[in-house]
């Protein structure tokens, strides 16, 4: 006897539709699917580790409030990253131009805390510092590519540019990061 086939998990579009009809579980499932990737994107974009959860919550708040604006032309994750990028820009402006990634705010390894799970390797920390110095579009293209594996078509649709321009931004980002991280 073969086990009954497991139904395919609902798509993000189906969950969004269910949430619009008042299904709280659909909202929870969407958060479960995307929260960790979103947190990593925020952290990689310069947010302090201690702010990541609040920023992720704010991103989901903006996303659910404007869910009608998500047409499905890009994946929900790319759309969430775009919202998160706008949120970080707003936070940056609110801080009157101060960099969000402060040198004293780095999550460097604490030698007195061997179990600290936020300890980042030196290489990762240098990459993160380098990312914080990139222009926003270069940084977002790079992160969508290396953290999500998104193709240039999808990146272009998410960020409102062309696939060719997205490819150029990616290669500029790689070149600059190589210089900054060297």
């Amino acid at each position, binding site marked *: 006897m073969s086990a009954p086939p497991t139904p395919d998990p609902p798509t993000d579009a189906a969950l969004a539709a269910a949430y619009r009809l008042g299904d709280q579980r659909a*909202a929870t499932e969407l958060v479960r699917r995307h929260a960790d990737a979103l947190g990593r994107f*925020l*952290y990689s974009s310069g947010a302090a580790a201690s702010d990541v*959860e609040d920023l992720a919550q704010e991103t989901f708040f903006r996303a*659910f409030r404007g869910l009608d604006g998500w047409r499905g032309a890009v994946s929900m994750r790319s759309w969430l990253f775009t919202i998160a990028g706008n949120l970080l820009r707003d936070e940056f402006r609110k801080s009157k131009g101060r960099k969000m990634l402060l040198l004293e705010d780095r999550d460097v390894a604490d030698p007195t805390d061997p179990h600290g*799970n936020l300890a980042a390797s030196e290489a990762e920390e240098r990459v993160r510092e380098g*990312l914080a110095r990139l222009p926003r579009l270069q940084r977002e293209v790079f992160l969508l590519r290396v953290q999500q594996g998104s193709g240039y078509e999808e990146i272009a649709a998410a960020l409102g540019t062309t696939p060719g321009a997205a490819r150029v931004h990616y290669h500029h980002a790689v070149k600059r990061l190589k210089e900054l991280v060297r």
Partner: protein
Amino acid sequence: MTTCTLLSDRMPEVALGRARWTADEERHLAACADCRAEWTLVAAASGLGAQLPPVDPERTAALVTERLRHERIRSHIRVRRVALLTGLAGLAAAAVLALAVWAGRGGRGTLPGGPPLPAPVPVASTPPPVSAGDSQILPRPEPRLAQGPVSPASAVEFPMPELDSLPAEALDSMLRALDEPLAHVGPYDLPPDDSGDRELEQVLAGWEG
């Protein structure tokens, strides 16, 4: 496409564990310092933040939906408040207009809802000119300050059925709500608990009877 470009395009997939390097690619990586530097960079960037504590989805979703609920209530109250203020402004304008009409008619009538005005002070008829030799001194006319008696036919009414139908508690709530400054209502200034929410809902319930 050069081998370097091909490798560069595949790096994200390999870094995310969705693909593996072929033997040829591994040989190229070992020999090409530029590709090796890029691979180190991409591998490090793809793992950034992997050690962050996981977000609790239930808690986050509950907080987000609660914030959205608060915002909807506030938005509803704001709309209702603007509508009410617009209505009151309209009533005030109508009252000014009615007073102007009332004054234009010579002021004969009653103030709306008020007691009848006092009986007029008799105004003496204009006395005949006083002769003073060849010149005539005309008396200065007395100002007619006193108004005539109230005539029921000329009374001006200001019906306010939408307010009359409200109970006293609702009127009190409405007045309290109107006394609050509008500017303090922001989308993110949530109260620490839901007591503010209950108060807002009471105001809404009061307005809606």
